Each structure stands twice: as C-alpha cells, then as structure tokens.
C-alpha cells in the first residue's frame, strides 16, 4: 500500500534535515524483521527460528539506534506456547550471526555504539527481550543473556511468570520474591528493566525495588483509552518520578483515543502529548513496536498466546488493516519526527523525546 508521509512545508523540510543531522534518533521498541507476505506461512516461518532482519527497510529510516525485541511471544521454535530458554537463545544467536556478517547494523553493547553509529551513518542494534519468562528460576540466566548481547529485559509478558503478574491477570498481585532478586541482579549487571507488559502492581513493585530508573518501552495512557494493555497515570508518574522513560506504543489497536478511534498517528500522538503533560518532556520517547509485514494478521494468528483479546477489550473501536503513519519501523521513524516538527516542537524538546531521554537513562543504567 502507499506509504503515508506527514506533509511538511519547505521551511519544515529544512528543519527536518537539521534535526536528523544533529540529534540521535532511537526507537525504544521495534521488531525490525521482514515477515512472509502470506500470513498463513507465518507459523512455519517463526518455527524456523530464522527471522530476516530488514536491513534495507532500516536503511531508509531516520533511526540511529533501534531496540530489537526479537521474536518475543511469537518465538515458537520448539513450542507453540513460546518463551522457552533455548528458543530465545536460538533467536538471539541466529540474528546475531547474521548481523555479524555485515557492517551497516552494529550489534550494540554500550552507549558508545549509538554515537559511533550516528557518526558513521550506521544503525546501532540493541537486543531486548520483552519478558523474563525463559529464565524460570535461574538468576544466572540474566548474566548469560547479557553476555550474549541482551541489554534490556521485560519482567513479565502479558502472561505472568515466576517473577510476577502480567497485565492480562485480573488479580492485582505484584513482584514475587524471585522477581525482586531478579530486579536486584539486573541492577548489578547493568541490564535495563522494562515493565511494558507487567500488571500494574508488579510495575509499581519493580519501580520501587529497582535502584535505577526503568523503562516502560511501549505503552500508552489508560486514562485516554481504557484497556488493560495501557498503563494508569499513577504507574506512569511513579516511573517518571524515579527518572524512568516511557515509550509510546503503536502496535495495532493499542494507542487509540476517544477523539481518534481510528488507530493512526494522531491517536498515537495524543497518547504522547497526554503522557508528556503528565510526567514532563524529560520522561517520554517512542517505542512504536512495529514490524515489516501484516501486523494485524500476525495478531490474529497469535491472538491466544499474546492475549490480544484480553488486552484490547474495552470500548468500541474501528478495526484497521494497519496503523496509518506507523505501519512499520521505517514509516514510524519518518512520521514521528515529521509530526513533531509540524506541531512546532523546539529542537531541544525534539532532541529529548527522539533519543536524549533514553540516552540519559542508559548512562545511569548501563
């Protein structure tokens, strides 16, 4: 389908060039891989454990760094239920091997890689695993993942695990004893913590337990759109109060609003501005959570294991075939920057929300 581009006038286009040149632009949460055109082939594709990095797609983006969240809930190499230790490792290893055979995408291990990527016209690629389910009850696995390249990890997915309650649970339990030990170990090792998919109380517990600020990498405001998948104001504030950074999510049918019931860049940016007003411009960024392919189709196929129905249950909304303006990581990167320019955001503020806030947090954590 035709790409969507937020239109800018000549002056704004000139500003765009300057911004791209000056500032580090980071996506805090993506799945930048290519998926099969025929969604019916998707299961077989994922079972292979050999996802294809979208080198060319990324090359057309504005991104200097991307947090790749790998196969996450669709990592079904050996089990339909996903989240198996060896499967997660298989995915990370396979992608890392591929990345090692080219020079445009750099496997990132530290902040310096982001700055080097920007200098050299490359992209720094950071591995993030959006849940810790696969570590079972093994604390050492956190270090093993770090050694293999993982630099950010979610505490739980939407489903609960041995660390705590996921957002799909109806109950309000929080972090478990093991989860607390895991948070402490992640602090010691320097692995960034993400609570995008955890239940509200678990998120609160993690924020309190962690001696470093944390990320909520791909989220929106439940106060704008009342579904379990988004976070309530108090959690967003608690995260920001401790220095954390919140990334706005754009996977299909997440960041919708009453004003914009058709999921697209306007509803997405309503969540951005709401959260920015709630916690301050220093604590927001973007984690679009997109991929190259039929994201809606993928959701349909994996709906059970990704708790899609539970997470998006709420008011009536328009079902879209794709999210206009944020259809894939490349398009999302263009339109986010362009939208901010169009809406008169200053260079300083843009620098913060496009990557500066993330860099600030990582300086403390990594």
């Amino acid at each position: 389908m035709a790409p969507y581009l937020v239109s800018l006038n000549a002056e704004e286009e000139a500003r765009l060039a300057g911004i791209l040149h000056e500032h580090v632009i980071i996506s805090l949460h993506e799945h930048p891989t290519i998926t099969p055109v025929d969604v019916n082939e998707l299961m077989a594709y994922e079972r292979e454990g050999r996802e294809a990095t979208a080198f060319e797609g990324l090359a057309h983006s504005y991104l200097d760094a991307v947090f790749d969240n790998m196969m996450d809930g669709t990592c079904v190499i050996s089990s339909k239920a996903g989240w198996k230790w060896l499967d997660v490792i298989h995915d990370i290893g396979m992608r890392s091997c591929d990345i090692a055979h080219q020079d445009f995408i750099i496997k990132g291990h530290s902040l310096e890689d982001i700055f080097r990527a920007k200098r050299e016209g490359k992209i720094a690629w950071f591995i993030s695993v959006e849940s810790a389910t696969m570590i079972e009850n093994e604390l050492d696995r956190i270090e093993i993942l770090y050694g293999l390249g993982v630099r950010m990890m979610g505490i739980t997915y939407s489903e609960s695990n041995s660390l705590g309650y996921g957002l799909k649970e109806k109950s309000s339990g929080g972090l478990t004893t093991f989860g607390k030990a895991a948070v402490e170990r992640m602090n010691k090792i320097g692995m960034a913590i993400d609570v995008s998919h955890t239940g509200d109380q678990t998120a609160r517990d993690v924020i309190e337990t962690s001696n470093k600020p944390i990320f909520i990498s791909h989220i929106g405001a439940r106060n704008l759109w009342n579904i379990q998948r988004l976070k309530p104001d108090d959690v967003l504030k608690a995260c920001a109060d401790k220095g954390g950074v919140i990334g706005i999510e754009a996977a299909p049918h997440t960041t919708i609003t009453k004003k914009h019931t058709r999921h697209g860049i306007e509803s997405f940016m309503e969540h951005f501005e709401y959260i920015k007003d709630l916690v301050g411009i220093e604590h927001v960024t973007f984690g679009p959570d997109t991929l190259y392919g039929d994201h809606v189709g993928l959701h349909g196929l994996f709906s059970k294991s990704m708790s899609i129905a539970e997470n998006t249950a709420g008011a009536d909304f328009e079902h879209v075939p794709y999210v206009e303006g944020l259809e894939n990581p490349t398009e999302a990167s263009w339109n986010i920057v362009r939208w901010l320019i169009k809406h008169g955001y200053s260079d300083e503020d843009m620098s913060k929300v496009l990557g500066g806030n993330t860099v600030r947090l990582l300086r403390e954590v990594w």
Partner: protein
Amino acid sequence: MTLKKAYDGYKAYSYLEEGVDYPYFKYSSATERVEPYLLPLNETQEKRLLEVVDKSIIISLHDHPVYFPEDMKQVFEYNREGRQIAAYEALSKSYLDVVFDNLMDGTNTIGSKNGWKWNDVLHDLGIRLCDLAHQNFIIRAEKVEDLYRAHKEGKMALVPTIEGAAMLENEVDRVEILYGFGVRLMGITYSEGNSLGAGLKEKNDGGLMAQGYKVVERMNKVGMAIDCSHVGDNTTIDVIEASKHPIFMSHCGARQIWNTRRLKPDHVIKACAAKGGVIGIEAAPHTTLTVNNLDHNIEGFMEHFEYIKDLVGIDFVAFGPDTLYGDHVALHHAFASHLSIQSAHEGTAHFDEVPYVKGLENPTEASLNIVRWLVKHNYSDEDIAKVVGGNVIRVLEEVWV
C-alpha cells in the same frame, strides 16, 4: 611487571558480590603457585626480546586462562557453578596480545557429569562474556582487525573457542547460533567421537560422518575456523579435504617423536599444512614429552615445535600451550575420564609424572618462555613473528568473514 598498559585492575565479576551472589572458593596463586621459571637470557637477548614483543602480534592458539581452586578436590563444585574466574591480572603480565580461550571444554559439568551439553556450553560462554563486557582490558575478538587493535592499544583480544562439537547434536543451525555469540573456532570432535566423526580415543575411526560434512560446510559458509586437535586421524584427513579453507590443529604435537594417540602422525600434519593450515604446539601435562625430555618441560615442547617446523615449514606452526592457572596435573587426575587421559597416553614409553610442566606452567609463563626460547635459539625476527602469531593471522584472514 605489567606489560599490558591498558589493564586497570579489574577482577572477574566485580559487578557482583563474591560469597553472596556466587560462592567463594580459595584460588591458587596464579603465577606463583609453583616456583616461577624464566628462561635465562643474556643482556643482548633481553633487549632483543623487548623489541620482538613490541613488534609482533603474539597469539596463544589454545589456553584456558582462568583461576582454579587451590584445593583441586573442589573443582567439581567449582565447575558445576559454571562461573570460572577469568585471570585478567595474570594475563596482563603475559606477552599475549590474543588468547583463544577454550572455556570449560570436557570439564563443563554444569548440568551433567558427562559434559558437552548445549545448555551448559551456552551457560559457560554467556557468563564469561557477561564478565568480559564489564571491563575494557580484554576485548572480544570477532574480526582480524580486533587482534591488531588489541596489540596497538596495550589490550588483549579473547577469541571464544569450543574444542569439541558434541553439543551440536544433529542441529547444524547451532553453528550459527554459536557464531552469533562470538565463537570463532570450534573442534569437530573432542577425544570422544560424536555425531560428526571419530575422536582420537576411538579405535574405529571410520572418518567424517554425513552430519560432519554438513557441519564443516556450514562452518566454512559462516566463517568459523575449524580445529582438529582432538579428532581421530582418519576423520581429520576427511575434514582437511572437505573444508574449503585451511584448518587449525590448535594444540597437539608429533606422534613420530612421542608415540601416543594424543599427538598427530606425520601424514596428518603434512596434510594440514599442505592446505595452508596451522599446527599449534601443546603443553598440557604429559602430552609433548620426548625421549630426551621425559620430565615434561619446555625443552621437550620445543623439540615437538622444531620437529614439526622441519616437517612442514616455519609458515605452518604456532603455539597452543593449553595451560591454566592452577594445578593442572591434579585436574587431570580428577577429570581423568572426561579428558580421556588414559587412552591419550596408550602406547607410550614409560614416563614419570611431573607435578607441573617447567617453563609452561600457566598461560602467562608459557607466553614469556616461548618467546624467550625463540630469541635464545637465534630465530630471526621474521620467523619469530610468524610462529608467535603471523601464521595464525594468515589463516584467519582467509577463514574469518
């Protein structure tokens, strides 16, 4: 004496609390466990030595540069932890620019007494890499340019190596997964056979198996170097023939001068070199013995070096001492069956065990004395540069992507 300027005092796992986050073991002194031995040189030779070390990239093609418990009876518990202690300080006193770190190999008994489990290999690798990522003295080598950079910056480069491939089972994709995690050299088999081919302890070496051909092919495509140190003779010949690129035999010696299965016959050494491969000389206790040096020491080790050098030429030899920081002899006793010690020595002349290999007791001492010995024996600068690292780099330039 700290030759490596970039070492800043980092100790392994400094980001955790020893005794709280992981168990405490009392470790051997790294370089003074036994009386240190430095090959004596005269003043001119000492001066030349420093120049040589400054100019050349010095590579250990095979070592296990970690500290071990002082009481080797604790080694089972230590290994089960899967958290070996990298010897940053001791390595900083070596001449090494590059070390091929062979991790826990046959003694990787984290989850099973029998070792060689996929999950355990990943565990060992992951924990060690996490530690490496927390310091700046030792860099992970992924490309040849990393080796040069280490030398230039007064650092060291570490190449994760796995000396057997049993953990692959029948999964060829695991080659890529290991490559993705930094492994750049892998042995086709350990001393025991596996689903790829026969190891050196097997009496029936039927050569490389179908699965083995697939793995060799995949290793060639991915750019992972191949090692046949522990592989049976026939299987090794098949690997050399099947591989598009030269291979390594990272730690071995000449069976012709000490008749054991553990060392390689002339025809295998020649086949390896004929295809451009490089043979590293081994110094684990009681391997590279000779009739003239029945007490394992650097002289016997160098007899193997010179024999192989004369056999195939100076362009195809290097050093893979295969040492560690601790009582290696006691470790061999403890792990005898895992390391196939008995069958490795079948057929030899009688020899007495030594408590340690004089001059090559640990990775640091080995690196010092190897270069000192070459200087003492009047090898030219050019030849020294070849055997201490240049030959290895030549192969890597072809094999590594």
